């Protein structure tokens, strides 16, 4: 079976002389090459343009890849011509293509965002380093989703993580340093766990290729080594995924990172880990083993529910908008892992579609906060006071993004929530559906708090003045544009959810019907 598919892969490579065969590699190579280029040229303007261009290119490639995957099934690309399972194989599944689409889209739009001056603690002449790190991070995230080799996943994971630690530490507030450090420790432990898990599995199967391993695992599933390996993999990924109670690195990291980094990471980092976890659970081990034999659902489901509540409740009390959004992310990740823990098509579909919906929404909201911060000089909830009239477009963008977080119909958030509830019902868990809905009411509270501040708050004294002592006015177009695109996307894909849902569904079907088990 594996040999056949490998043969087919080779055949494809042999037969097709078209360039798009190399797209899977290109997707990773582009940012990976661009990163040192930025470093070499040492020009901020060049770096900025190059990174944006690369991001948009990867987005285009991701689009093509997704279309191709949907049309032809899994796209395989043996790296360096070494066929799997011996060489490293890039393997684009529907889910993978879906995730890289989200990652590259968010990257492209956040790089389009003109983060003037306020971006980082880097001196202006050294800001090219920022783009370098950014591109590395992008490459790492894309690589994780594309590669079909477990150890390769670890490598890309570390690439993205290391660059994101650096990026976070660039935040202007000195608290960013501690946040980055904390994330570093957690991330490294998570990565280490992942690596150990991979090692143990390799020990039992002798392969690192995901599909190959999936073929071989069933024979040794009842050995304790595999169980231990599975536990390591899962906990390692849970750390990266900020599953409750391993979520505490996230709020500060997102809060104190430079604005664009917050927006980018919030929309992508955890999403990719989510994809990897789904692949490990469903493709590598198979739903039957994970949920029926081990009963992971009994662990993951309560943790997800706890995350939904803890994240949302903590968000209610936050004074800082970014931290509010970060805690909200923890809650939203709870929805995604809950969908995964349901282990049915609807649940997984909801998780995967939320990858897109939440990615777009949360990035948009972080960009909104960046706009507010740029004009008012602060990012507290209080700083939104009375912005309804002074920054109407930005305010409206927040309201719409907030609605998506709540899951108001007509926004993207609703679509995922709808699917999640269907998943809960399909798993015959009505109470879970109710819990999901109740928890989304908590989102109403923290979103509404801000909305009230926007439209009812009365700025007093210094508050009515912005960062430079000038009256606060609408954010510049170059900042507003990507923000509004992201926010508009939440509405567009809230109303026109057919494409997102159908891709997510075929990804879910593919994952669930995957090998192993």
């Amino acid at each position: 079976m594996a040999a056949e598919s490998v043969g087919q892969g080779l055949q494809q490579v042999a037969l097709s002389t078209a360039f798009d065969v190399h797209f899977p590699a290109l997707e990773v190579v582009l940012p990976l090459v661009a990163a040192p280029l930025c470093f070499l040229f040492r020009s901020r303007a060049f770096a900025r343009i190059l990174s944006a261009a690369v991001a948009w290119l990867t987005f285009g490639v991701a689009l093509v890849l997704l279309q191709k995957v949907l049309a032809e099934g899994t796209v395989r690309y043996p790296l360096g011509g070494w066929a799997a399972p011996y060489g490293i194989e890039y393997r684009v599944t529907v889910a993978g293509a879906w995730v890289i689409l989200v990652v590259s889209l968010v990257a492209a739009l956040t790089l389009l965002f003109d983060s003037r001056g306020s971006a980082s603690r880097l001196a202006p002449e050294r800001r090219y380093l920022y783009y370098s790190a950014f591109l590395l991070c992008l490459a790492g995230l894309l690589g994780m989703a594309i590669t079909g080799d477990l150890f390769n996943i670890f490598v890309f994971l570390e690439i993205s993580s290391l660059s994101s630690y650096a990026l976070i530490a660039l935040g202007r507030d000195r608290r960013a340093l501690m946040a980055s450090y904390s994330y570093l420790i957690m991330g490294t432990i998570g990565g280490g766990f992942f690596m150990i898990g991979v090692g143990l599995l390799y020990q039992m199967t002798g392969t690192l290729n995901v599909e190959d391993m999936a073929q071989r695992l069933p024979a040794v599933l009842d050995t304790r080594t595999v169980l231990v390996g599975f536990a390591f993999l899962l906990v390692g990924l849970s750390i990266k995924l900020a599953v409750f109670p391993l979520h505490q690195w996230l709020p500060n990291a997102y809060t104190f990172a430079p604005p664009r980094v917050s927006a980018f990471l919030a929309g992508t980092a955890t999403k990719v880990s989510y994809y990897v976890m789904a692949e490990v659970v469903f493709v590598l081990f198979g739903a039957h083993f994970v949920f029926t034999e081990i009963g992971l659902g009994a662990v993951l489901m309560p943790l997800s529910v706890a995350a939904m509540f803890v994240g949302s409740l903590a968000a209610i009390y936050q004074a800082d908008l970014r931290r509010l959004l970060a805690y909200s992310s923890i809650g939203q990740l709870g929805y995604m892992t809950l969908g995964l823990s349901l282990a049915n098509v609807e649940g997984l579909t909801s998780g995967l579609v939320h990858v897109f919906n939440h990615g777009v929404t949360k990035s948009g909201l972080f960009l909104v906060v960046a706009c507010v911060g740029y004009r008012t000089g602060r990012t507290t909830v209080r700083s939104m006071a009375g912005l309804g009239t002074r920054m109407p477009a930005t305010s409206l963008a927040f309201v719409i993004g907030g609605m998506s977080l709540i899951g108001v119909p007509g926004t993207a958030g609703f679509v995922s929530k709808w699917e999640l509830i269907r998943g809960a019902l399909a798993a015959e868990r009505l109470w879970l559906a109710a819990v999901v809905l109740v928890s989304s009411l908590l989102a109403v509270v923290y979103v509404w708090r801000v909305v009230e501040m926007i439209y009812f708050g009365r700025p007093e004294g210094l508050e009515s003045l912005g960062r430079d002592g000038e009256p606060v006015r609408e954010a510049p177009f170059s900042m507003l544009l990507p923000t509004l695109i992201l926010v508009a996307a939440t509405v567009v894909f809230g109303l026109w959810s057919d494409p997102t849902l159908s891709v997510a569904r075929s990804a879910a079907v593919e994952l669930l019907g995957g090998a192993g088990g």
Partner: protein
Amino acid sequence: MSLLEALLVQRGLWVYWAIITLMMIGLYGVIARDHLVKKVMGLNVFQSSAILLYVAIGKVRGGTAAILLEGEENVLYSNPLPHVLMLTAIVVGIATTALALALTVRIQEAYGTLEEDELARLRVREDEEEAALDPHPFDPPGEPEDVEYPEVKVGGGAGGAGV
């Protein structure tokens, strides 16, 4: 098969026990030490344990290094792949350590301390200063008090310098 049996009976597992012990030591360092550099050291120990695991996996009893010798047939090689992988892992580990240490330097510059509980206290104070500017979400919406907003000190003493 109980743990005790596993421990006593199955020979050859001592390596794994060593690895586990090493890992636990590393994790203990990260968990229990307040000093940031000590945490990094713990992290390094933890990483070493992972690397050792891979090396142990690759070891074939009686095998030699995977070097192709001219004319020799039927040589028992150790599995080279885990060793190769560990080269990458070591690189990653070094990068991590370097970054972590760089961060500790910055933290020391910004706060003047590397004790985590001390840092947490400082951070909490900063958080609270910020929160004080914000009415509590559930406080009844009254007329906002007339507060003067102090300039929030951004970035401690080391704003603007490069990495």
